[in-house]
C-alpha cells in the first residue's frame, strides 16, 4: 500500500503541493463492540483492555495520506447514546463516511450492524461510504460470525469490509485507508468556494464569521 498516516498535527512535510480534504466519519454499532477502541488505535496508536467510555471528546481527527492528497478524518463516536436506542439522527447528518462495527465473537452484534446499515442507507446522505468492520479479530477462537458470511453481506450491500482488531492493530489502518481511497476528493479550497453558493450552510463556530466588534454592523 502506498499510503501512510501522519499525526493530526501534520500538514507540513515535503509534499507542499498536496491537497487536503476533510470528511466527517461516524462510528455505529452495538455497545462494547469496540468502536471507541478502533478510533483510539487509529488516532493515538493505543489500546486499553478496559476502555472506559470516552468522556469529553466530541470527535477526534486523524489524517491519511493518499498519493498527493491528505485526507483528514473528523471521527465521531456515539458517546454512548446508542446504548438505549437513543442515538440522535443529527449524529450521522452530513457524514461522508461511516464504519459500522460488530464483534466477530457476538452474532447478535452482527445483526445489529445490519440494522445500522439499513438506517444509514435510509437516513444518511445517499453518497455515504460505508465500511463494515468485524472487530475483535484477536478473539478468533471464539468466532461466532464467519468471514464468508459477513463478506457476502458486505458485497451484497456494496460495503467495504474488513475484520479488525483494535487490540493487535490488525487492519485498523487499512480500513481507514480504504475508506479514504473511496471518498471523492475535492480540495478544501474547492469546498470553501462552494460555501458561497446557495446549497451550503453557515457554520457559526467556524470561519464564516465576520470579525467585527459588537457594534459591527454592515448598516453603519
Amino acid at each position: 500500500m502506498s499510503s501512510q498516516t501522519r499525526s493530526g498535527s501534520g500538514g507540513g512535510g515535503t509534499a507542499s503541493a498536496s491537497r487536503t480534504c476533510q470528511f466527517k466519519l461516524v462510528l455505529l454499532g452495538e455497545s462494547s463492540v469496540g468502536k471507541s477502541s478502533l478510533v483510539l488505535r487509529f488516532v493515538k496508536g493505543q489500546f486499553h483492555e478496559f476502555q472506559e467510555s470516552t468522556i469529553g471528546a466530541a470527535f477526534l481527527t486523524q489524517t491519511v495520506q493518499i498519493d498527493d492528497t491528505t485526507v483528514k478524518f473528523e471521527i465521531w463516536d456515539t458517546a454512548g447514546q446508542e446504548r438505549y436506542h437513543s442515538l440522535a439522527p443529527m449524529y450521522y447528518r452530513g457524514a461522508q463516511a461511516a464504519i459500522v462495527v460488530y464483534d466477530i465473537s457476538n452474532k447478535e452484534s452482527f445483526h445489529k450492524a445490519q440494522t445500522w446499515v439499513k438506517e444509514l442507507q435510509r437516513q444518511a446522505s445517499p453518497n455515504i461510504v460505508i465500511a463494515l468492520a468485524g472487530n475483535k479479530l484477536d478473539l478468533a477462537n471464539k468466532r461466532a460470525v464467519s468471514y464468508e458470511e459477513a463478506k457476502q453481506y458486505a458485497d451484497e450491500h456494496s460495503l467495504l469490509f474488513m475484520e479488525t482488531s483494535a487490540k493487535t492493530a490488525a487492519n485498523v489502518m487499512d480500513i481507514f485507508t480504504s475508506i479514504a481511497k473511496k471518498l471523492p476528493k475535492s480540495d478544501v479550497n474547492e469546498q470553501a468556494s462552494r460555501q458561497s453558493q446557495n446549497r451550503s450552510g453557515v457554520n457559526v463556530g467556524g470561519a464564516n464569521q465576520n470579525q467585527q466588534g459588537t457594534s459591527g454592523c454592515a448598516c453603519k
Partner: protein
Amino acid sequence: MSDLPKDYDIIIVGTGLTESILAGALARIGKSVLHIDRNQFYGGEFASHTLNNLMEWSDKIKRYPDIENDREQNDKSCFKKCNNDLGKYYTEIEYSFSDLETQDKLLKLSRKFTLDLTPNIFYSRGQLIELLISSDVAKYCEFKMVSQILTLDRDGNVQKVPTSRSEVFKSNKLGMLEKRSMMQFVQAVLKDDNFNELIEPEQLQTISFRQLISNKKFPQIINDYLINAVAMCPNEKDNALKGLNDTKKFLTSVGRFGDSPFLYSMYGAGELPQCFCRMSAVFGAIYYLDMTIDKFHINSENRIESITTKNDKEEFKFNCKNLIIDSSYAPIDYFKSIDNLISHCILITDKTIYKNDDGLDHISLLFLPKMKDTDIYMIETSYASNCSPQGYFVVYLFCRNTRKTSRENFEKCIETFFNIGELDENKPNVLFSCFYSHIDSDYFVHELDKISNRPNNLHFVSGCQPKLDFDHHVEQAKKIFNDICPNDEFMPKPPDPEDIIFGDETENKNEISKETNQNETSE
C-alpha cells in the same frame, strides 16, 4: 437493563430545548445526569418531523383518552403521578391535503420534508448563537441565512426589506432623503445603550415605540419598515425601550454572518436540542428515549428523592437530588384548564410568497402585525435549508390564540397570501395544512411555580413561546442551572479533543507491536 445506574445528581424529563441545554450544562461540569423522553424521538415540543411522522404525531394526540384523572387517586403526599396525556397539552389538532392525488405525491416525498413543531429563527447575535459558539456545540450544527426579511405594505403587496447598508442604498423603494433619514436613525440606535440621541430617558418606558417613531416624522415606508420588520413592536404596550433594544439586536446581528440578521437551523429547529444532548452525552449523561416518568416520590422534608419511570416493557426506580421536568409532564393534579394558548399552522405550498429574480431558494421571515387581533409570525423555508424537496415550500405561522379554533387565527392570513377558492395563478397553492394549539407553557410554569407545597428540588421547564428566537430558553436554562449549581460556570468551552488524555497513557502496557500475525482474514 440491569446495567443502568440507579443514582443521579439530576434527572431530566423531556428533551425539549431548555431541558437539553440544561443537560449539556450539568453534564459539562461533571454532574451525573439521566435524560429521558416519553417519545422515541428527540425534542418533544421542539421536534422536527417528516410528513408521515407529523401525521402520526397528530393522530396519536387526538387518540389520547381524557380519562387519566379517574385512573388513580393523586392526592397522596408521598408521591405525585405525572401527566403523559398529550391531549392535555395540545388541542385543536387537524390536518388535511388539498386532494387525494396531491396526498399520494407528497407522501412519497415524506422523508424529504422536515417539519418543525416549533419553528424559529435566530438573531446572529442572540443568546442562543452566542451559547452555541462559547460552548463549542456549534460544531454539531449548521445554519442558513434567512435571506429575505419581508413586510406587507399598505397596498397589500409583499416587499423585501433592505437590511444591509448596501441593500438600503440599492433599494428603489426609498428616495435619497428617506435613505438618509433611515441611516441617521440606525446610527443613533447603535450609538449607546440609553438611546440619548433619540429619546429623553424618562420617556423610554412611558411612550410606545410606535409613538416614538411617529414623532420622528419619517416617511410612511420607513415607519413601516422600522415598526413591523426591524423591531417587530407594533403594539401600544411595546414601549420605546423594548422597541429600541429589539432594533439594536436586529442591527448588530446584520453583517455577522451575512447581510441578514437571522439564521435558520439547517434540517429544522429540531436539530438544536439534539446538538445539546450530544454534548451532554459526550460528557457522560445517559440517554434513554421512549421512557417516561410515571411518578415522583417525595420524602418527609418535601424533597423528591426518586422517580418511577416506565415504558411498554419495563418499570424502573431511580434516585435523584434534583428533578427537572418539562411542564407537559407536570403532575396530573397540577393541570388546570388554561385559556392561554399558542396556535400554529404548517403549510406545504408549491410556490414562494415572494418571488425573487435571482432564481435561488430562500428562507423568508414575514411579521404580520394585527392580522385579525393577533400578531402572526410567518417563516417560509425551502430546499435551501434541506427542509423540503425542490419545488416545494414549507410555511410556518404562529401566534397567540385569540380564537375558538387554531385554524381561525390564520384564516385571514392564508386568504391573503395563498390561493384559496378563486384562481390566482400568482399565489401559491396550499397542498397540505396542519393546525394545532398548545398551552402557553411559560404561563403554565409561572402558575406551577406558585404552588405552595411544591418540592423545592423540582424544576419546571416551559416550551415554545410566540416569539422569534430561542433566547428565553437560554435564560431559563441559566436560571435553573444557577438554582442547582450556584457556584459553577455555565457551559465553559470544552477542552480541545486533541488535548484529552485517554485511559492511562503513562502505563501503556497493552501497546502491541504494529506488526502482528493476525492479518490472515482480510483481502
